[in-house]
């Protein structure tokens, strides 16, 4: 066999590299964890996003179906509602909490030692017989039950259900007594990262998916999702305003419970700044309100503001448990149904002082002497949400606990309930995240159904292969050499593969413009191959000379096309960037990798 030229080796190297980048070398059969709640028992046990589950107890898991069957057989549906709620009374150095939960609390705790007996003395020697005097919350997930019920970092836990706690051992003993593992199902989950044991009587809070066959990521216009391009109304956003906007928006979407969200700043050709929000998968209808509402929450008595949304005034917002929820639904006089919700919030000291000083000036309501003369009015974006009576005993009091309430209406009871829930969620979201300093404008909002995308991808693959085959036929008709035709087809396929490989390597999403870019690159690629074929058949010059000339022409067209594409990287807020990038990757691959190899192959074929 003839020795292969280095140019061909280079092509082989890139093709193999791209194959590896696109198709992961992973022969494990199982399901991959797509998402996992941070405060779940499963997370605490060590399960993480991206791990591959291969076995649960003794059942082998090879695909999503297996996982569903295994979970259903371990947790039969009839037992679902029988999870006992346990009341917890937690006393801390700051506040006391009472709430119910069905699982043990998960938080990072550390033991505190008496000052004179530090765990290490000055010489770095460990003092072995130290006894801690208390345990303190070191870390706490914002979505956890504990957090939602008001527990915070740096609080020292004094007792739980009347039992004093000074050590971690105490804490674990009490928790295990309250939530005994005996009543629970033992789950042994085998993953590629090891074996994890979970005691639970609920279906693990994880979502799984079949292991993806390729590492190619498709863009929103193919896989479905929502995309919004946002600027400020009536003003230009500065870079720092944009960063503030992004941090508030990510907090809101996070509080709202949306996962798989990407928020990033974009600047267009005219130097205008935008925030680009991309959410994969199905999107809630209220997305528009969530990202574009200014979310200015104000609680006023008369025209004096008592507190506003955001962490400065509002230190805690209850979102689950008994302190938050819909408590009544009634038919309305004017027709339809209405549901009322309420939830508790905690105010900062400053806000509480303000409340005291404002209420001190109020008299008693003449018609309703239990209450004060003015009401607490809640405004969202300058619209009155609700007016609350203020009990007369709250006069002059520095109250930190406030009940927020409101209502949702609808034609049917279900609609009213859903609307009340939405309103509540939005109100809670703005109370936590605070308001944006300016009005926003949605410049572009696309919500794309994932349904069209699935078939679409297959169609594109068929179209691509058919187009390359058509090229092969054309080349055969012209040159009447099967080998040359095959060389053109293989080179084009190699180019597609390398573009996909590089995209996968750099985690680039393939959207429609990107696919158009691949087509453009392959098109110019084929053109150049034809130039090489023709130049190499001119008999008046030496073969080497002829191919050199061909490469001269190709380099010329390469540079022109490359420069022609550059403006697209910025124009139109970068939404067509995918096109420019794939085309540039494609034509560069063509000039530096595939075409030199193709010339060698042609030379070999013609020499024979």
């Amino acid at each position, binding site marked *: 066999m003839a020795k292969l030229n280095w140019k061909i080796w280079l092509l082989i190297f890139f093709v193999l590299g791209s194959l590896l980048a696109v198709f992961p070398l992973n022969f494990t059969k199982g399901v991959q964890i797509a998402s996992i709640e941070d405060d779940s028992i499963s997370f605490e046990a060590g399960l993480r996003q991206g791990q591959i589950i291969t076995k649960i107890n003794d059942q082998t898991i090879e695909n999503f179906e297996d996982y569903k069957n295994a979970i259903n057989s371990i947790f039969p549906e009839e037992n679902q509602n029988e999870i006992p709620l346990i009341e917890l009374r937690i006393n801390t150095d700051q506040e006391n909490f009472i709430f119910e939960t069905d699982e043990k609390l998960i938080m990072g705790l550390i033991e505190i030692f008496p000052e004179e007996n530090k765990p290490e003395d000055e010489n770095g020697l460990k003092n072995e017989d130290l006894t801690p005097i208390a345990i303190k919350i070191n870390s706490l997930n914002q979505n956890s039950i504990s957090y939602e019920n008001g527990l915070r970092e740096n609080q020292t836990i004094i007792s739980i259900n009347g039992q004093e706690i000074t050590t971690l051992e105490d804490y674990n003993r009490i928790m295990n007594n309250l939530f005994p593992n005996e009543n629970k199902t033992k789950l042994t989950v085998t993953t590629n990262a090891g074996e994890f044991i979970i005691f639970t009587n609920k279906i693990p809070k994880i979502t799984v998916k079949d292991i993806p066959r390729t590492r190619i990521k498709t863009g929103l216009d193919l896989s479905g999702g*929502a995309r919004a*391009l946002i600027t400020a109304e009536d003003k230009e956003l500065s870079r720092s305003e944009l960063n503030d906007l992004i941090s508030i928006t990510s907090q809101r979407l996070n509080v709202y419970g949306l996962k798989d969200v990407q928020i990033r700043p974009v600047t*267009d*050709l*005219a130097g205008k700044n935008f925030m680009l929000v991309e959410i994969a998968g*199905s999107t809630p209808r209220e997305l528009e309100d969530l990202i574009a509402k200014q979310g200015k929450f104000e609680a006023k008595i008369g025209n004096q503001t008592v507190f506003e949304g955001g962490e400065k005034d509002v230190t805690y917002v209850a979102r689950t448990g008994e302190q938050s929820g819909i408590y009544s639904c009634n038919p309305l006089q004017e027709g339809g149904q209405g549901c009322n919700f309420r939830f508790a919030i905690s105010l900062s000291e400053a806000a509480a002082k303000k409340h005291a000083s404002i209420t001190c000036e109020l008299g008693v309501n003449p018609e309703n002497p239990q209450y004060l003369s003015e009401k607490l009015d809640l405004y969202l974006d300058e619209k009155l949400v609700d007016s609350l009576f203020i009990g007369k005993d709250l006069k002059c009091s520095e109250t930190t606990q406030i009940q927020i309430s409101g209502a949702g209406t609808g034609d049917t009871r279900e609609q009213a309930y859903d609307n009340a829930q939405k309103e509540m969620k939005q109100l809670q979201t703005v109370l936590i995240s605070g308001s944006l300093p300016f009005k926003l*404008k949605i*410049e*572009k*909002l696309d*919500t*794309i*159904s994932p*349904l*069209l995308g699935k*078939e*679409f991808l297959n*169609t*594109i693959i*068929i*179209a691509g292969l*058919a*187009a390359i085959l*058509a090229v092969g036929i*054309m*080349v055969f008709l*012209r040159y009447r050499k099967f080998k040359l035709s095959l060389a053109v087809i293989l080179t084009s396929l190699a180019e597609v593969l390398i573009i996909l490989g590089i995209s996968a390597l750099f985690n680039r999403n393939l959207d*429609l*413009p990107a696919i*158009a870019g691949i*087509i*453009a690159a392959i*098109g*110019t690629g*084929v*053109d150049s191959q*034809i130039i090489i074929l*023709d*130049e190499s058949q*001119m008999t*008046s010059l030496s073969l080497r000379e002829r191919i050199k000339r061909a490469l*001269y*022409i190709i380099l*010329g*067209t390469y540079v*022109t*096309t490359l*420069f*022609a*594409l*550059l*403006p*697209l990287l*910025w*124009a*139109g*807020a970068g939404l067509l960037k995918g*096109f420019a990038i794939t*085309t540039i990757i494609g034509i560069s691959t063509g000039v530096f990798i595939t075409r030199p190899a193709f010339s060698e192959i042609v030379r070999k074929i013609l020499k*024979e």
Partner: protein
Amino acid sequence: MEEHHTEHYTEHHEHREEHRETIPLKQKFEKGYNKNYKLLLLIPAIILILSLIQLGYSYSQNGDFIEKDITLTGGTSITILIQDSEISINQLSNFLSNNIGDFSIRELSDFRSGQQKAVIVETVLGPNEIRPFVEEYLGYELTTENSSIESTGSSLGESFYNQLRIAILISFILMAIIVFFIFRTFVPSAAVVISAFADIIMTLAFVNVLGIKVSSAGITAILMLIGYSVDSDIMLTTRLLKRHGETNKNLFGAFKTGITMTLTSIVALTVALVITQSFSEVLQQIFTILLIGLGFDIMNTWITNVSILKWHLDVKNKGNN
């Protein structure tokens, strides 16, 4: 060794044919061509002038050279996926025209079975103005499970359009600079640039005549066209300028290569267009515009560019003699 033989055989074969009949015909053709190639320039010149008139007319009518779709003017496009029963476009259209003014409706259907796959409603209105009416007609809520909604604000659409226009302009100028840099002689470089310019102008005019509303993706197709157009022009010019020998012989060789390039692209694009048209408006428009452009490129490369270049070479050769 075997293939070597075949090659010889083919060449021989061609020679024989030429001797028998093509040569006199070819010589006749060549003589006629040498005499009249400058006249041929009239064809693209007339088409270019007609195209410019068309564009000027659209400008006077609509205030712009092309008809823009909602991605460039601002507006909303709702794609309703067909789930169980087909949607009657006429009924939906009647219903909507009672409620809103300016809108258009199209359907996408499967390219094999002809079955309706989706109905697309486009309007310059915002999503919240059109959505309730469509929902009222359908009798169900539009969600991401049954529809896609894309909306662009009018100021964003306008700024997209301006930026894409600037992008095309910058691309074109960069292309021209590089072409001049490669060939370093004025007339041949100008010929390449003029051909590319003619390609774009004729394509835009033809797109207008067909009544296609251009989207932002359509504008990227114009950008692609610059690349495709320059490809064959650079090949041609290099062959004629940097190669010794008779102009016509070089020209014929370049023609064979160039026409193969363009025809191959046309065939591949047609195949891709037929397969994808039922799925994606975006790709459909890109492919259509490219096909139109490549069609004009055949004329502009092999008449416009060639004639100018040959003229230039003839003048130069006469000067040398």
